[in-house]
């Protein structure tokens, strides 16, 4: 007579732990998703304090921004032409202080427009400096 060996050694994982495992997985992936690292662009903005002597000597390239337009040294320029034009203007300037590009923005200029323009300036080798519009006191006569 043949004796059948009992080889049924399979053990099932306890079903009660399934909920815990699922919950832990959800929490783990939620934390991973919320902790995604930021990406961006470094920008070195020099302080805009200048002595009157420096101001008199330096003739920097000036970029004027309105809500939708860009002007380099007063000349309207298309966004795609900003980098090539600035590259031409900065071509013979070797010292970092000569490569300063003064960005003057109207108060309503949106951030995405500003970022795109300053990216083009840096691409052309310029160093971005902000010049804000000076506050003017307007007296209304009686």
């Amino acid at each position: 007579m043949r004796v059948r060996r009992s080889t049924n050694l399979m053990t099932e994982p306890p079903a009660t732990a399934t909920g815990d495992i699922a919950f832990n997985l959800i929490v783990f992936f939620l934390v991973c998703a919320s902790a995604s690292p930021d990406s961006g662009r470094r920008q070195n903005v020099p302080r805009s304090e200048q002595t009157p002597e420096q101001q008199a000597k330096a003739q920097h390239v000036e970029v004027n921004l309105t809500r939708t337009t860009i002007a380099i040294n007063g000349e309207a320029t298309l966004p795609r032409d900003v980098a090539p034009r600035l590259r031409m203007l900065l071509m013979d300037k070797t010292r970092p202080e000569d490569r300063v590009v003064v960005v003057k923005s109207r108060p309503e200029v949106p951030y995405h427009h500003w970022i795109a323009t300053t990216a083009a300036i840096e691409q052309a080798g310029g160093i971005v400096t902000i010049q804000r519009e000076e506050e003017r006191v307007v007296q209304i006569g009686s």
Partner: protein
Amino acid sequence: MKIKRKTFKADVPAMAMGDIAFNLLIFFVILAQANDDSFLKWQPARAMEVEPAGYARVSVLIDAEDKLYLNGRQVGVAMLASQISNLLEDRPPGERTVLLKVHREAQAMYYEPVIEAISEAGGDLVHVLDKLNEE
């Protein structure tokens, strides 16, 4: 004759200990993110070339309503430079990163003073942007 009462042994299931420890760990890791500003509403601007921003002690955010936040706390622009200086202390260059998160439609009158304040405080400015995919 004394009848002995039946005693029932009640054990805490040891199997759940690992799960409990893991959940506690995650809970405290989330709490430790002191400068969390993930609850604020803003959309980053896009740029072609972006790089990982790395770790920063200071994060400045201008949200969709043009409100200014420093490490998740609403602040005024007038005191921003001194507050950033306090947070950066005397850290060497390279450890003075300040993340600037500006809503893409925010106007220059809001973000330019902030950029100036970061520059004045001696922070290494990093604009937080989304990568623009070429199509």
